Structure formats: C-alpha cells, structure tokens
C-alpha cells in the first residue's frame, strides 16, 4: 500500500468496479470506472458496473450530450463512497461489462505488476 505522500504518476489510474470503490485501498485515488448509466439527474449519475453493483458519480454541470452513450467510462477521484467525476468517455451502447469486470479483477490482483504504479502494488 502506498503511503499518503505517494503521488499518482500521470496516466496511472486503477480500473475498478463499484464494490472496489468502498475498499480503503482506493480511497482518494484517481480511478477509472466503466459502467452502464442507470440515471442522471444533472448533478449526479448512477452507474452499474460489471459486478452488478452501483456507484454514484458526482459531477458539476450536465454531461455533454455527445458523450451520452449507454456505457461510459468515468475517470475521477474516489471520495468516501462516491466518485468525483473528472472525465467522461463514451463506451458505446453495447459493451461487455462482465468480461471487462473479469479483466479488471486480474489487473487488480495477480497482474498489478504490468498495470499498477510500483508504489501502489499490494501483496
């Protein structure tokens, strides 16, 4: 586990799901979450991720209409039990969330060595 002083290097953001948002390991980290948009009231959005759980994404202002696809990737900062949105990327209207979830489970466990910044690799 990285110490609080460890800075995330540019381009490093773990790919996680809604369950992982609640894990202390990812607290206050910039992360990526891919999910299906369940609701969007203009200030926050609910995303369902590949583990079947939901996570709240808080954003300032409405999302750009061009980015409103059924599936989106949010890059943002884990804050308590929600994610503060920085960037939203469209991921199309047909995305295999289940396989994506299996892939990120591998990235966050056995294959951290090829995906994680060294200071953030856990045993």
């Amino acid at each position, binding site marked *: 586990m990285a110490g609080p002083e460890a800075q995330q*290097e*540019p*381009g*490093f*953001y*773990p*790919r996680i799901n809604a369950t992982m948002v609640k894990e202390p390991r990812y607290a206050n980290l910039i992360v*990526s979450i891919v999910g299906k948009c369940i609701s969007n009231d203009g200030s926050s959005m609910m995303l369902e991720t590949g583990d079947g759980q939901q996570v709240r994404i808080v954003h300032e202002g409405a999302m750009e209409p061009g980015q409103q696809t059924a*599936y989106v990737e949010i890059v943002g900062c884990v804050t308590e039990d929600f994610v503060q949105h920085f*960037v939203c*990327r469209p*991921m*199309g209207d*047909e*995305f*295999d969330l289940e*396989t*994506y979830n*299996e*892939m990120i*489970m*591998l*990235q966050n*466990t*056995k*294959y951290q060595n*090829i*995906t*994680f*910044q060294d200071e953030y690799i856990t045993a």
Partner: protein
Amino acid sequence: MSYGGYEFNADTTSYGGADPMQTSPNPASSSDKKPRKPTSDQFLLPCTIKQCLKAASADGQLLVDGQDPHQIKLVACVKSKEEGETANTYELEDGTGLIEVKEWINSTSDGDHARARRALIQPNCYVRVVGKLSQFGGKVNVTAWHTKLVASPNEVTHHFLDAIWCHENATRGLINGSVKSEINGISTGVGFGPQSSGVALMDTSTGGGDKKHVQDYIQQFSEETEQGVALRDIVEALGGKGVSESAIRNAIQGLSSDGMIYSTIDEETFKYAM
C-alpha cells in the same frame, strides 16, 4: 515465436509496412541500416503502457518481459494531440501510464483516407496503435506506423487480456521451449486467483505446458523438411525434458483439433499450420 498468432512478417503486414523512419526528414543511409531480424523474431507484442515505460534496460536495449519486440500494440485513450506538418504527436494513457506516440506524416504520399483517419483521432477517444518502442532523452516513446480508432470499446478489454496472456507466456518461461522451475507452483494451480475465480485465461494444467512444448517443437522444425516433423522425433526430443509419449500424443490431438498443426504423409507426421 508466435504470441497468440501475432507473429507476422513486416514485409507483408497490413499495417502499412513502410518504416516510418524512412519517411522522416532525415532518413538513415542504407549503409547505416541494421540487418533485418529473422522472421521468427519479428513479432507484434500487445502490452500495457507501463510495460513500455519499464522497457529500458541497462545496456540500452528496450525489452518487454525480457524480449525485444519487433513491434508493440497499445490500446489507449488519447489525452492530447499535437498536429504538425511532418508528424502528429499524441499523449496516450491506458490507466497504467502515459506515453508519447509520434506518427510521421508523408504529405506527398498520404491519401485522403489516411488524412481522414488521422482527423478522427481526438482527445478522449480510444485508439489502437502499432509501432516501435524508442528512447529519446531517457524517455521511452513509440514511433507509430498505424494509429486508428478502436473498432469497438470491447477492444479495450480484449487488448488487456491479450497483454496478460503474452506476459504470462513470456514470464512463465515457455518461450523457446524451456520451462523455468518457478512455474511448477502455477502449473498445479495452487494459490493463484484465476483458477479459483473461474477466469480461464490459458490452460494451466501440466498438459498445457506439454502442449506448448510440442507446438514450439513442431513450429521450429516444421519447415526443415517437406513432409514436416515425425512423431518419433518429437518423442525423442521432448523425452529428455520428461514429457511422456502419451502426453505428446494428447498434445498433438489437441493441437490438431485447434487447427494449429495438420498431418501430412501419414498420421504421425505433422506441419505447423499458422
């Protein structure tokens, strides 16, 4: 060596083929050219940006998992794009790191199609990049000869799984037919997540290792004779490594049904199909 079927000859590649350095303003003279690598070393390696950034080794070579990849493939998101007259420069990120990618532009020979393809690449888009790792000023970057928007966002998932597969393949020591002793624990499936979580990336049973041995052997010697490789030669060669004849026969049956090999003059002589 083939990595999940990614081996190919640069001369026949559909990724443009032309060495981008030859289209740069200062092409190297022909006498400076390095000799072409053997075809077996001209493979395309899917990898993460972190693997690229960590590629620098002490002797100046750029090695990914201890190998010198002829070309690498990335799937990543465009963070920034800088358009120039002779080259476009992109900053790409994939969650594992950030890397600079340069794509040379040949304003005289590039057609409308190439210009339109490049115009589509904008920040926040996922792209597929095929190119070569290079190093400048202590920083690793990529010289690209193929950049294109991904066909589907599912390509992101596929690419990362592909990179994991190739990393496993290389680090388990299955390359060149030798097996490192430390993989024995993995082979039995003890204490590792993928087996218990039901994510079957590759055959991790001991039979999988034998299959790879047999495949590598047939691939290596397939072209030495017109008829291919005889079963007795495989048994003789791999017997010394502790692979039994029955395991070899099983492996051959599996490879044959996978379409990796085919029998030639009789049912005990095989050629590599890929």
